[in-house]
Every structure is written in C-alpha cells, then in structure tokens.
C-alpha cells in the first residue's frame, strides 16, 4: 500500500520560501499566480492489510514525526492498489 502524506504550514505561519517562489514566478511572467505556500510531500510504502490500516499508520507517522503540530498540518491519501 502506498500512503501519500501532504504536510503544509498552518495558515498563520509566515512562509518566506513560498513568498520567494511566488516572486520568482512573477518575474517569469506568471502574474496570475497570486500566492504560493511551500510544503512537504512523503510517500510511504506500507505493509498493511487494508487501505484503512495504511491510512491509520500513516496518520500516526504524520502526527508523531512527519509534521510538527505547532506549525504544520497534514492530510493523507492512500492508493487503493
């Protein structure tokens, strides 16, 4: 099973990297891109019996390690394959 974990900064946290990326896009001509937030993406290959179990395990991993709850939130997708 493959779980995908998306970790993003909480809205209230200032993201200078995202701002810089947005500015760079503007200089490349993409003025229609208003805002950019930069986050992290993890792919976990898990030995699990079901998608639900994989999601639960991934959620634990995210809560304990992959995301810092003070500044980040996360969401999980599981490949049904």
């Amino acid at each position, binding site marked *: 099973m493959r779980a995908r974990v998306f970790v993003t900064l909480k809205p209230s946290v200032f993201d200078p990297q995202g701002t810089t990326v947005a500015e760079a896009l503007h200089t490349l001509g993409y003025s229609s891109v208003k805002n950019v937030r930069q986050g992290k993406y993890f792919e976990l290959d898990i030995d699990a019996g079901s998608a639900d179990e994989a999601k639960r395990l991934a959620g634990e991993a995210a809560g304990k*390690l992959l995301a810092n709850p003070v500044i980040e939130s996360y969401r999980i997708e599981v490949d049904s394959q």
Partner: protein
Amino acid sequence: MKFAVVVFPGSNCDHDAYYAAQHVLGQDAELIWHKDTSLKGADVVVLPGGFAHGDYLRTGAIARFSPIMQEVQRFAAGGGPVLGICNGFQVLLEAGMLPGAMLRNTVLQFRCEHVYVRVEQTDTPFTAACAPGQVLRIPIAHGEGNYYAEPDVVDRLEHNRQVIFRYATVSGDVTPAANPNGSLNNIAGICNETRNVVGLMPHPERACELAVGSADGLVLFESVLKALSHGAFASAR
C-alpha cells in the same frame, strides 16, 4: 560541578561546549552519546549546536527520540538545569520541553555573525550572574532561528517572563534592525515554566575567550555555577 554535553549524530558544537566548560571554566565535563541511558551524575546538561541527523525532516525532529532524551526529560522534571544551544534549542522545542517551533530565517540564508542580545530575566540558572538588561555580544550561526509560537502561547510566555534573551542593539534597544532572523518579538531564548530549562539560538560557548572575539558568553556558564552552589536548581536524583 559536572557538565554533561549530549552528542547526537551530526552535533558539531559539542566539543566547543565541552571546551568551554572544561578548559575555560575549569569544571568537569563529559560527552554523552545519544544512545546512552545515563547522564552519569551530571549537575548540568547541555544540548549543543550542530546539525543532528543532518537537520533532515526538521531541525531536531529525529534527535528528540534518542534514548538519552528520556534521561534528559527526567533530569529536567526533577528541576535540573538544562541548556539547549541552537540545534539543542531546536531539539528541546521538538521534544516539547519548551513551547514553540523554529522556522527558516526570513532572509532565507544561513547567518553567521556577532549579534547583541539583552538579558530579560536573571532568575534562571543560566542568567543568575547577569544584571537585568545586560547586553551580551554573542555569535549566531543558523539558517533556522526564526522563533514562532501561536499568539496565545507567545502571550503566555511574555506574561510568565519566560522570554530570557532578546535580539537588541548594542545599547539594548529591541528593534527590527537588531533581529537577524525574523523571530517573533525578537525572541532569542526562552525558558520553561519551572525556569530550569533554557534554550537560546546564539552560541555562548563561542564567546568565552576574547581571543575568538568576545567573552560575553562566559557569564551563562558562570551563572549556572553560581545558581547551583547556592542550592538552587539542583536536580532531585
């Protein structure tokens, strides 16, 4: 007085903290490997600077799970003095021993230079020998020293006098220009509620001898000697 300096894989400033305690201060110091489960009778614990686990995932995120950290938590819970320097501060934050988190410097670059910090509170083991408002010239060297906490947490820190060091000018004014990394409220260092665990981003161990540019950092180490010899902050072992 015995200093324990914890060494994580990737710690770099462990030798500097060791040298400051042992050679400059003339005390007993020992390097403790992160897989050890004993602090070997230390009176003070230092989590040094560096790049524990390469700073991979997040600074301090993996080091907080090291076996030794259980002992460090126990030591702190018993009231013992713990100093987290730079990466060590980041480990304390990830371990929940101090509130808040570190973000990348707003300038998006690593910054190595001397800065001035103002001592805000002198009732911690590491500022007991300072004068209130004393300005210290100490170097920083970090890419992620931008302190952040949610507004209610920051309010609580300020209200409880848990902000111990702030970035300031040479004359002690807390201004945006004096802030090298964008930290909220120019926060350079904080303590926990029981005031025995202190974390700061600047490197006092790099400012213990004039030969290397400043000796203003020595007072943090002298403070803990003073505090412990007066019977305060000893860890209940």
